[in-house]
């Protein structure tokens, strides 16, 4: 009877220990899920932000935008200058 009593106590202790371990692990898992969700949200927010910045960048660097900004600032088309095969006066002397 003494031996069986020890066995019962041992088994009960193991069960209780395992329940505690399971509770701790479940607790950890439940909070990490929330963390994963938070990280997911952050990744999505960064992706959206990147896409929006990319859109702004393309709009700003488009030739249409640059041309209109240049016109606003008073830039005009440059005169076409091409050196012919005959050397300039300075180079000939």
């Amino acid at each position: 009877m003494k031996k069986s009593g020890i066995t019962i106590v041992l088994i009960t202790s193991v069960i209780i220990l395992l329940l505690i371990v399971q509770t701790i692990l479940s607790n950890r898992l439940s909070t990490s899920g929330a963390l994963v969700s938070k990280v997911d949200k952050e990744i999505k927010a960064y992706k959206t932000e990147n896409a929006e910045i990319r859109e702004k960048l393309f709009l700003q660097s488009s030739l249409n935008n640059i041309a209109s900004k240049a016109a606003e600032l008073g830039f005009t088309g440059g005169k076409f200058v091409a050196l012919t095969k005959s050397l300039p006066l300075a180079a000939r002397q």
Partner: protein
Amino acid sequence: MNWRYRLTFLILLLTFIAITGRLFYWQVVKAQELYVLAQSQYGRLIKVMPLRGEIKTSDGFPIAANKISYLVFANPREVKDKKTAEKIAAILKVDIASISAKLALDRLWVSLKSTIDTQTKESIESLNLPGVGFEEKSTRFYPEASMSSQMLGFVGKNELGEDKGYFGLEGYYDRLLRGRESYIVGVQDALGRPILSKATDGVRKIDGSNLILSVDRPIQFLVEKKLKEGIETYGATSGVVGVMNPKTGEIIAMASFPTFVPSEYQNYPEDLYKNPFVSSIYEPGSTIKPIVMAGALDAHIIKPETKCPICSGPVVIGDYELHTWNDKYYKDINMIDVIIHSDNTGMVYVAQKLGVDKMISYLNKFGIGSLTYIDSQGEIPASLKPKNAWYPVDLATTGFGQGISVTPIQLLTAFSAIANNGKVMQPHFVSQVESLDGEVAKIPPKVLGTPISEQTAKVMTEILVSAVNKGEAQWVRLKGYRIAGKTGTASIPVKGHYDPSKTITSFIGFAPAENPKFVMLVILDKPTVAIYGAETAAPIFFDIARDILSYYGIPPSE
């Protein structure tokens, strides 16, 4: 007792076999069928659309990209505030009645407006309206607005409401740009409410590939600007310009006007969607003369110094009298001067010497009458007449570009052979295809044929340089540069005769003549300020050519 025991055992065994057999039938034989049936009861198939590939110019700048937009939706059962419709309508700038009508529906989900931008979304979000939500989407975005729109085409919706490319590159490369969609089974409970679980069928979503064009963005911008200015200056109804690398067939720029804004394609007439450079036909007029002359030179039927014995006056063929464009005639004119003066009677002589068989043969070899197979949706072939339908007058007028129809891309491709030692290259916009993992597949140049010899091409080039330096367009030529080119003025056929007051003017040429970097065709439709190519299309050609030569850093050679 023994037989009773055996009977009981037999009954139990048979029952066990029957149950096992039935289970085998449901779980193995009918498994797939039941799986599909069950899925339809507890799940909903959701299609996950891939991200559409971008279209980039040669400098890597996306002229067709993707941007984030939002679909604003509502659950009418959760919307209690009666002012919700008013508030949303004010921000979305739509009729209050349309929003109110949607919110009055007895549904769990209604779409209020699609493709709203981030700012609008944030404005609605700040109101904290219960029952109103947003769904993130990806929509086409054109950083250069209407630039290259007829070359690009647009992205619309198919009959299932999915994105689909139409016209131009979007239409031609739709499958490549679209990628592959995947499916997710959204699991729902017995009442049809979604539950937080999902089962995928294992088909992975593949985003679309990017297209890298040979189109040079600064040149494209320049060409569009100059074309628009030219159309306004010469009072034309429309115009097109195409610039190509004759050695590879790569399109450097292609512009047409009037055009449309791809993101607002619904607001424009449908006839503007097609790229007229590949989808319209016209009579080329004198710009066809170098093709016919090159054929005759290559066939050794004539030489540059051959004198025209029929050029002292109008040529009579049957009931028709064929004149030169200015009614000036040069007796015994040689073939170089025939091109310089754009002499129609000289070209009648060349066409007659060539004959119908060789004329058709050379035109076919140059690609006139067949598709160029350019990578753009909507190319039409502009076929030649069958041989038995050619009358003597048809042969004569084809020599100077009347009674024959071409597409601008056909003519540009054919003319490029003169600039490329006699080889016709297949024109194409896309030079590389970039997959999602960064792998780049280059598209190699393709030779479509060699209609004339290298020697003939060189002789024809020299004749065309003389045409620029001494012809009608010499007043606008770029001094110091050797440019080969030809003017064109084609009357417009109306109800069986040619309208003398309305013309299609053009100029085709390449530069520098000794080592061509580009070949360009400029066409103006019905200019009103002047009706000749030398006075309208030629100035635009040389204006653009000057800037391209400067951009490429090519110095004058003379």
